[in-house]
Structure formats: C-alpha cells, structure tokens
C-alpha cells in the first residue's frame, strides 16, 4: 500500500510562534512525516526554515503573481454558511465583541475578488496572528488555501483548530478530498458552556463537515459530542505527546515546599481555585509557598484576592516567564497543581512529570486520562485539592509513589504513539 499524502493546515508553527497549538502541530508533523507524505500550510512560516521529512509553506512567503495564476476561475462556497464575522475577535475573551460586522450574503455561491496583494500582506506584517482583524485573516487564509490546494496532490486534508476549519472545508469542497479536523481547544474550554458566536459556529460547522474529528482527549471528545452535537461515531480521541525536555534540579533558596501553578491567568485555567486551594493548605501547614507563574487578564484581580485571603506572604506571582525561567521554576518545584475548569489536554502537567514532580490535577482535563499516578479532584472541589497537596507535602511515601507512577505515565505519552493512532484514523476515513 502506498503512503498516504496528507495536506495539513495549521495556524501557529515554531519557531515563529510558540504557543501550545504550534508546539503540538510541530510534534504531530514530525512524527507523522515518518509515516505519510506530508505538506503543511500555515499563515506564517520563517523564510528558509526547513523541517525533516515535511515541507512547510508559509503564506507570508508567497508572491502575489503566483497567487493570481492559481486563482483563475475558482468560486468559493463555504462562506455563505458562516453569516456574520465580527471584526474584532479575541478567542480568549469571554464575550465576543460586536463592533462592525462583515456581512456575507446567504445566497450560496459567492465569487470573491481575486486575492489582492493586501490580503497577502495580512500575513507578512509583524502583527500578531491573533491580533487585529482576526476574522478577515481566517477568511483570507481559507481563500488562499482553497486556491493553493488545487495545485497539490494529496489524499486528505487535516485541519488544526477553528482558525483553519473554514480553510479545511473549503479545500474539501474544492477538491473532493476527505477532511479530518483536529480539536486542540474549543470555545467551550476558553469561554465556558454558554459560549456562542462566530468561533463556536465555525467549530461546529467544521466538525459537521469533517469526515473525522480528532480531539486531544476523551474529555474533549465528550465536549465535541455533547456541546457541539457531533456524531460520536466519527470522533477519534488521540492524546498529545510530550517532547522530552532537558531535566535538571535546582535547590530552592527557601526551606518551604513549593507548589506551582503555570498557565495563562484566565477563567479556563482556574487560577481563582488555586488561590482558594492555597488558602486551605495554609490553614493546615505553613511549611509551603505557592507560586502562580504566567500572566493574563485576571492577574490584578488575583493579586488582590490573594491579599484578601491573607496569603500574600506565601502566595507569589511571577508574571510572564520565558521558557528558561519556567524550567528553572520546574526544577525547584515540589508539587504541580492544575485546577483547570476545562482543559482539553494539559501538556504542562506532563512536562512537570518529566521533572519528576507529582501533580494534583482537575478531573476536567485530558491529561487526567493519561496520568494514572496524578492525584485528581473536580476543579471546584478545593477541599479535596488541598487535601491532595497536604498529603503530598507531608507523606514522603505517597510522594515517591506518585512521582514514580508519573514517570511511567510519561513513557507512554509520545508523538510516535499519537501519529500511529492518527494514521489509523486516516485509513478509516479513506477506506483503505
């Protein structure tokens, strides 16, 4: 049987953008490239960057004339479905802004103007990919991908997260090739159960149009099925892997145990719960310090809440930390705590495990499915979370057990295993 040819659509990609999505896409691409013929299209790629086993095309590196020739005689079909596109979109904001809408007519086929140089410029500017007119970027990306796909030879298209779903659907319609969509994070995770709006619509539409949906965990699969009404028969969860990191240990400068929270300070990650957990733990022992590493819209509010709880001398904020500082922090941490309200996967818990740190994590996370050793509780159950932490920092035997089991758990979490599972999904979709 010949190798499957996969056209992958991504949004972030290292080394230009190093968000969680980019890191995951890179890990998947590297592992998949061993098993399939792979081409990846992203809005922005570092000019001249090469990757072993696959080609990466950044729209920012395309020439205007090149696009004009590709575009001849193509009509776009999918945009009529997505109604209104808000101009200002922040996927991490709780409510979508309403200023100025681009309205698309609902008449079915729409002939877009030729790709303008200005459209390509959207992706060559220095502006952050998520900044400015995100809706327009998503739409332009879809148009350009659909046109480009016609000059590629591939068996299926695999799109990663909502920013690329429109493009995936458009490619499917333009070429008739099956579509696989990957769900790394949904609007349900970012904005809660009541999230609706353009992004939600695109996610739902993309998953409905797809031939298979790959969520990053069973937990996220239940979100796709339960919250987006996607047929469970076409949902195939595949856990993320973790790239091995350089592990080292640093001696803390203070005698107390250290409990770490790492992540964006947004409602999704449950930082308020971490504060409450800390206050509960400190009621029982003062031989502990807590650190909240990261930044976000809730930082200032959290600082004040910490002061209000009277834990200001034991609960510390670092603000944003670069990768090196994060690793320095991990190298001295005793317990990792991830009380996320909804965490599609939760790679950071695996990274902590690589540093031999036992984790206390919320049941509402994908990583809970692979970390058998971690202590778990519902995100809202701060008493149970606090009990787990107190147990870990006072019971050396338990601490050792959990750390050892975590070491086992990491061994099974690699991109190789993930790529094998994806390959099976491809075969299923293609009927090979």
């Amino acid at each position, binding site marked *: 049987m010949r190798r499957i040819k996969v056209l992958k659509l991504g949004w972030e990609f290292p080394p230009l953008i190093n968000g969680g999505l980019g890191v995951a896409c890179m890990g998947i691409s590297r592992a998949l490239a061993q098993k399939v013929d792979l081409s990846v299209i992203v809005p922005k790629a570092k000019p001249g960057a090469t990757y072993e086993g696959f080609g990466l095309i950044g729209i920012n590196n395309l020439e205007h004339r090149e696009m004009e020739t590709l575009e001849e005689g193509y009509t776009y079909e999918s945009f009529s479905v997505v109604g209104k596109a808000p101009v200002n979109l922040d996927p991490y904001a709780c409510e979508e802004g309403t200023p100025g809408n681009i309205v698309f007519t609902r008449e079915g086929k729409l002939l877009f103007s030729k790709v303008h140089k200005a459209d390509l410029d959207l992706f060559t500017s220095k502006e952050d990919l998520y900044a400015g007119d995100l809706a327009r970027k998503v739409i332009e990306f879809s148009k350009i991908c659909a046109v480009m796909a016609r000059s590629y030879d591939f068996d299926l298209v695999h799109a990663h997260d909502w920013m690329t779903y429109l493009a995936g659907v458009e490619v499917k319609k333009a070429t008739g090739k099956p579509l696989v969509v990957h769900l790394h994070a949904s609007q349900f995770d970012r904005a809660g159960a009541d999230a609706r709006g353009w992004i939600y619509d695109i996610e739902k539409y993309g998953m409905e149009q797809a031939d298979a949906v790959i969520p990053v965990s069973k937990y996220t699969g239940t979100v796709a099925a339960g919250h987006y009404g996607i047929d469970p028969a076409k949902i195939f969860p595949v856990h993320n892997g973790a790239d091995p990191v350089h592990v080292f240990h640093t001696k*803390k*400068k*203070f*005698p*107390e145990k250290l409990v770490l929270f790492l992540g964006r300070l947004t409602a999704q990650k449950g930082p308020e719960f971490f504060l409450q957990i800390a206050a509960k733990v400190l009621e029982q022992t003062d031989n502990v*310090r807590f*650190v909240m590493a990261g930044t976000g819209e809730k*930082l*200032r509010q959290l*600082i*004040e809440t*910490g*002061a*209000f709880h*009277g834990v*200001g*001398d*034991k609960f*510390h*904020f*670092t603000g944003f930390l670069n990768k090196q*500082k994060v690793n*320095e922090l991990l190298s001295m941490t005793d317990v990792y705590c991830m009380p996320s309200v909804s965490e599609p996967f939760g790679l950071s818990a695996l990274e902590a495990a690589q540093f031999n740190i036992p984790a206390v994590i919320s049941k509402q996370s994908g990583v809970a499915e692979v970390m058998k050793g971690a202590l778990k509780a519902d995100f809202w159950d701060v008493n149970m979370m606090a009990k787990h932490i107190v147990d870990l920092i006072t019971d050396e035997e338990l601490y050792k057990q959990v750390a050892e089991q975590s070491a086992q758990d990491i061994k099974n979490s690699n991109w190789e295993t993930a790529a094998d599972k994806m390959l099976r999904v491809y075969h299923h979709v293609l009927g090979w």
Partner: protein
Amino acid sequence: MNISLTFHAHQPNRLIPYDFFKIGEHAFYEDDELNGRMLSEVAERCYLPANRLMKQLIELSDGKFKFALAISGVILEQAKYHRPDLITSFQELAETGCVEFLAMPYYASLASLYSTGEFAEQVEEHMDLIEELFGQRPTVLWNTGMLYSNAIAAQAYDMGFEGIMADGSSRMMKNLHPNELQCAPLIAKTKTIVRNRHLSNDLANRRVDPSWSEYPLSPYTYADWLGQQQGQVVNISMDYETLGERQPDTTGVFEFWRSMIMATLFAGNNFMTPTECVRSFDSTGTLDVPSPVSCSTFGTTTHWNGNVMQQEALKKIYDLENSVKDSEDRDMIHVWRKLQSADHFHYMEKSNGFTPYPSPFDAYIYYMNALADLQVRVKREAEIIHNAHKVTLA
C-alpha cells in the same frame, strides 16, 4: 502675631524589583543606586539651597527668624552614605541655635497605628540620632504624615513629650480655633500644636496653581495675611521639598520665601519654635480625635491602608515583630524596620501617581517577595539559635 514654621524632610527607600526567584537569597532589598541618585538630585535642587537660604535669613534677622525641622532617620541614613555634605549643611543650621529638631519615628513608619511598643522604640532611635548629629534632644513629636489621635497623643504624653503636632482639618477641629494650642482628652501636660491647614497649603500647593484666585501670590500679601491672624500662634508647616523640588527654582520659590520671611519680620511678627510655643501658651480647648487623622488630602489614613494589598502588607510586616526582635540581630531588626516606612504602602495605593514602580500591583509584589525573604531569614536565624541552645543544654 506669633508664627511657628516647621518643615518635614524625608526620602523613601525604593525597593529593587524583588522577584520570586530572589526569595531566600537575602539580597539587599533596596535600590541603593536609585535612592542615592534621587537623594543627590533633591539635595542639589532643594535641601542645600533651602538650607543656605534659611541660614542667611537667620543671620540677616540676627536670630529672630526661627523654624523647626522634622527630618526622618531614613533620609539622614541615606545622606550618611551618599551625601555626607547634606548632614554637614543641616549641622550648620543647628549651630545657629535657631532651628529646633523634632522627634519622629526613625523609619517614617505607621508604627503608631500597628504597634505602640515599636513606635516608642523608633522614636527613641530617632531622638538618639538627632542628639548625636545635632546636639539637641527633641521635646516635640511629629508623627509620620502628622498621624494623630487621642491614643497617639496619650502615648506622646507617656513618652514625656511637651508637644505633639497635628494637622488641623476642619472635620477634626470642629469649632476649635486652629491658631490655639489644644489638648487631647485627659492629657494636660502634652499640648497639641495644630497646623494651620489653609495657610500652609496656600504655600505648599496653591502658590503655583494658576487657577487659584490669588495667583500669582505676592510674598508681601502673604506676610500681611500672617500678620492679620488671630490667636496664640499660627502654625505653618509643609514638606521641605516644597522649596526647589515640588516648586522648582523657576517658580521663584526661593525668592518668594526670602521676601516673605523678611516682610513678616519687618511687620513686627514674632517667630517661635514649637517648644517655645508649648512653653509660652496654655491649651485653650480639648481636641477629641478618636480615630487617626493625617495631613493627607482627605485627612484620613486610607492612602496607606485603604486597599487589601496595603492591609495585607501591613499585617504581615507587623506579624513579624516578635520573631524579628527575638533574634536580637540588630541588622535584621534594622532591615525589618526599613520595610515599615509608610512609602512602601503608599506605593500600593491605586491612585498614587508618585511611584517608582510600573503599578501599585508591582509595588505590592516586590514588597511581599522581600517580606517573604525576610520571613525565611528570621526562620533560619531562629533555627540556628535553637540548635545552639540544644548544644549548650547537651
């Protein structure tokens, strides 16, 4: 008319951005380079030229011009390291015999609100320093930010002070006259000297405010106002930094003061120091101040302890008192006391524009990290003492 003039001089100890990774490192908390540079700049613009002017006025008036200085221990300590010439300049003023030095909490702290024992010790430490540098032991107390209440006045009496300064907001004074000496309830021997808020603020704030009806104020007009005052003594007091720092030389501030003082003297008015006031006059009324007041805009203490960050920081620094003092480690006690300066808490006020930090939240975070480091240091020293004790017993 009798006039009593008091200036207050202080510079904060700004902290370095003390981040989480420094907790337990026992680094030096203060930004010594910045604090030294700021002191130097203010010395050049304000303290040195102001001292020169005051000395000239004393000489020109044959000692008829007198005033009082409340200088914090913090600024004197900074000057010792960074600008010894500043101390010399104050000493020259002291030698004229026309300058009275007032007692303060050494660290310009809020100890009077949080620990009376600590407050007494800081005031003692300050008086020792004043005596050592300027050869006089203060008899009148100027609390940080003119913090005042019945309880604070009672403590000033216990400590043997003849007088204590308070800011005369109309809310506090009710129908009492600002130019009369007062007493706290049940306190007879320690008199309360009330600052004439209105006339003081004319010079401290409004003189440079173009929207003020009297702008531009003539020094002779102001001297007339002083002469027309009724009562025992009019008390004018403000930050010494008004001269040359808050109101730069270009506003004519030094020239204004020279002319104003000379005109006041020429009109036959009489300058008195605070101690001369309390020894010359009896108190005329009872001033009842059950909860603390200060000389801040609203007369309250909320700019130091109004929000949760300030309250948490204050609680945690004073929680350390016993364990820090038990260590008997003089250096550590000094470090702990320097963290009590009111400036640290003022920087955590959300509407404070005068701050070296990017935000009040950063001020709080750096402060709490430094405090956590001190906690660790206290803990370590306690363990060493404990272990040494065990060895001795064995």
